[in-house]
């Protein structure tokens, strides 16, 4: 269905730099600059510049947008790597052109999630000494330490994964790659010989298997939700459903992220034949599938919270039924789902641009839902005698600027990386004739 893609195609981002590229670059620097300035202000004055407060008599919430955005980015990152691992493991050839983009999204997402941990801290200067020096003790009981551990583990796994698969490409494309990055390429392909391809292939397969197995167990179905799900005195958080719920949110937001990134690259480098319409259709279907799961698990919580729940849990239910920060995201995801169903029934309703809109809608919805989740948990504690419970919270400008800043960082990351390495795998254009493999659609 597509015209033959060539090596020149996938090298285009490295060789061609348009005016729009520089404009994007500038926009990123502005976004990062705004956040950087405001964060410096926060470092100078303390977290009092946020809209956070103590829960209880303090009339507010102690975790807010920073933690919400942290989970959001981790979700995008985890979903990204699950997607790419699934592509390798199940041989979903259609998605191979975007597998590396998903991996890069994971690296960038995990990095800014890590940044959020630092931004959130009262004493970021002590991160290393206080956490590392006591690690052997705290790792037994602190979910926050588990988080840091697993995020680091995933970062390493993803980087290894990316590094290994890049060796093949860089070796083959070496003479077409810019000389000024020569030393970098030399390091990346250190000791490469074509004989290793098979071994690497196998290693990558096992890594992918590890990621697929570990991700639901440990990551977005594990330690990240456990941060909340293990606190019995915050009924909005507590409970076994948070694991699966978080995982569905991670996957919906990650697929949305991949849709946006793929669209941007396709448009910028005329990759219509590499990242084709079918790929977007496929991604949309997966998005629909996970959005359905997402809503279904939300429904489970609403039913159990509304039927005959204990007082505190009932309050969280009532809040959900009335709070715009919960209702609007749910409606947004529902409408996206409705659109995805409709375009399956009437293919003429599909367009890439609409897929992009669906992605943006889902990303906004999941971010707002995450922040609401964090905040509402603290607002309706089991010990709710305090008059100022529920407190109130609306993120301050500084907190909001962090979202802008981190999006800027992730975008900048893509802009820079695309100049150094091929963001589409050689494999993806080598085994063409793709598109009609036995892939199960939701």
């Amino acid at each position: 269905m597509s015209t033959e893609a060539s090596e020149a195609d996938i090298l285009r981002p490295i060789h061609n730099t348009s005016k729009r590229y520089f404009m994007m670059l500038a926009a990123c620097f502005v976004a990062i600059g705004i956040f950087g300035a405001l964060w410096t202000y926060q470092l100078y004055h303390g977290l009092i510049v946020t809209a956070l407060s103590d829960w209880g008599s303090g009339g507010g919430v102690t975790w807010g947008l920073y933690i919400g955005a942290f989970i959001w980015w981790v979700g995008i990152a985890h979903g990204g790597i699950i997607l790419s691992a699934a592509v390798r493991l199940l041989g979903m050839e259609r998605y191979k052109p975007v597998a590396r983009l998903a991996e890069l999204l994971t690296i960038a997402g995990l990095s800014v999630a890590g940044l959020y941990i630092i931004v959130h801290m009262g004493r970021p200067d002590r991160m290393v000494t206080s956490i590392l020096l006591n690690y052997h003790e705290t790792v037994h009981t602190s979910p926050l330490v588990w988080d840091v551990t697993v995020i680091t583990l995933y970062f390493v796994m993803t980087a290894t994964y990316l590094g290994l698969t890049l060796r093949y490409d860089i070796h083959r494309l070496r003479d077409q790659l810019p000389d000024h990055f020569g030393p970098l390429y030399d390091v990346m392909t250190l000791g490469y010989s074509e004989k290793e391809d098979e071994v690497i292939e196998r290693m990558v397969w096992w890594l992918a298997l590890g990621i697929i197995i570990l991700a639901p167990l440990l990551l977005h179905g594990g330690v990240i939700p456990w941060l909340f799900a293990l606190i019995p005195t915050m009924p909005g958080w507590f409970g076994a459903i948070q694991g699966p719920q978080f995982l569905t949110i991670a996957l919906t937001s990650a697929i949305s992220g991949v849709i946006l990134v793929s669209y941007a690259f396709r448009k910028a480098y005329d990759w219509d034949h590499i990242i084709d319409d079918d790929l977007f259709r496929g991604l949309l279907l997966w998005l629909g599938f996970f959005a359905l799961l997402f809503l279904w698990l939300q429904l489970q919580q609403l039913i159990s919270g509304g039927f005959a729940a204990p007082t505190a849990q009932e309050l969280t239910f009532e809040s959900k039924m009335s709070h715009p920060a919960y209702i609007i995201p749910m409606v947004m995801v529902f409408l996206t789902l409705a659109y995805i169903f409709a375009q399956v029934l009437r293919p003429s309703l599909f367009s890439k641009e609409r897929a992009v809109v669906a992605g943006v809608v889902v990303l906004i919805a999941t971010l707002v839902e995450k922040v609401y989740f964090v905040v509402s948990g603290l607002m309706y504690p089991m010990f709710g005698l305090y008059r100022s419970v529920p407190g109130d919270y609306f993120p301050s400008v500084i907190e909001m600027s962090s979202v802008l800043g981190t999006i800027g960082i992730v975008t900048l990351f893509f802009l820079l990386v695309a100049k150094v390495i091929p963001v589409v795998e050689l494999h993806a254009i080598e085994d063409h004739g793709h598109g009609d493999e036995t892939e199960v659609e939701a």
Partner: protein
Amino acid sequence: MSTDDSTHTDDPLAALHTDEWEAEMEELLEETDHDTELGIEMAKDAQRLVAGQIDEEEFHAKYHEAVIDEFGVDDRPIDDAIDTVKEAGGDAAAALEAFEDDDGTDRRDAMKKFGVGAAALSLAGWATADAMDDEPQDQAAVAAAQEDDEDDLQWGMVIDLDKCDGCLACVVACEQENGTGDGENWMYVFAYEEEDQDDMNYLVRTCQMCSDAPCEKVCPTTARHTRSSDGLVLTDYDVCIGCRYCQVACPYGVNYFQWGEPETPMDEIDDNHTHDKRGQWVDSRPPRGVMGKCTMCPSRQDGNMGDDMVGTTACEDACSMDAIHFGNMEDPDSDPNQYLEQVREERASANELQDDDADEWADRPDHTASTFRLLEEIGTKPNVVFVGNEPSSDAEQVEGPVSYEDVGQVDNRKEALDDGTFAGGVTE
């Protein structure tokens, strides 16, 4: 548990295996969460080992499997323990010291750490060594152990809510003692009403000094910790990174973060009121970016402020209604426990007077005072006991007879904090 094989008259250890010894062992081992029977059996054999009645191989052969079952590994602590006891060669103090941490963790803690094997051995080594050193009057060892138990210290409070009149003197006293800022209410007094009930109730809320503190469990840095010498849950202000997870995990909402520059500068804080006896900065308001909460006044308990302040807290001193009773919850003779007993007796006898026909209503229970610990069902093991009624889930906080503003305090901290929020807060 049988002591059959140690009842031979020629067994010098027989005298050690008294009921008290077993009881004490059982109690200690129960705390280690491991198989008590196994521990006691091991302890006995360990004594034999040290006394030279059996050798190390025998001992290992006998317990290797059981220990694997219990712990998954037959780990070094056991070998270490044997070595230690041997090295001590009958010196009781040396054997025990080897199990003590540099920071002076007590024997119980050491035992918890090393698990049942070491626990059994340390106790056995110590008891046996005593028995061998001194004249066979080994009961002294057992008695000493019991005495040691009574030395256990767990600071806590009994608060009589029926006596509180909502004057907020304790709130003010705590603020002055610790230099906390507006709305940083380490001590917080709720005035609340119940449905279908006219009068006002109070709940006087400090940190509950939980024995199983969730705030400590979740802390990623060990900044939030329990002081082993007296069970106070404290925050090491030099270690805390301000992640606020302790605040999230605490069921009672007693933590107050230092969001900005503290209102009371460091030079206005008494030098005696910052570092505890271990030299850790845990008292008075925390510095910026660090978590604070009611400390139960360690500077007083450690004698930094004079011996007559030991066993008191600022809030207790300020309470003219005598509602707050601070002291050692482990000691039946302490002020809080005595108070509790007194209250129970008083109310029971008040009840007796009406019950002059006790024979006729023989099944009627002797009513005692209603006491409770906050949210006891969630298993945090709080060390604050309240006398009075527990607020129901319908309880509603109301304006008390004295407002926080009346006494120069701030109730809702967010109102104060919003002044610092960049581009304004949103408190209505």
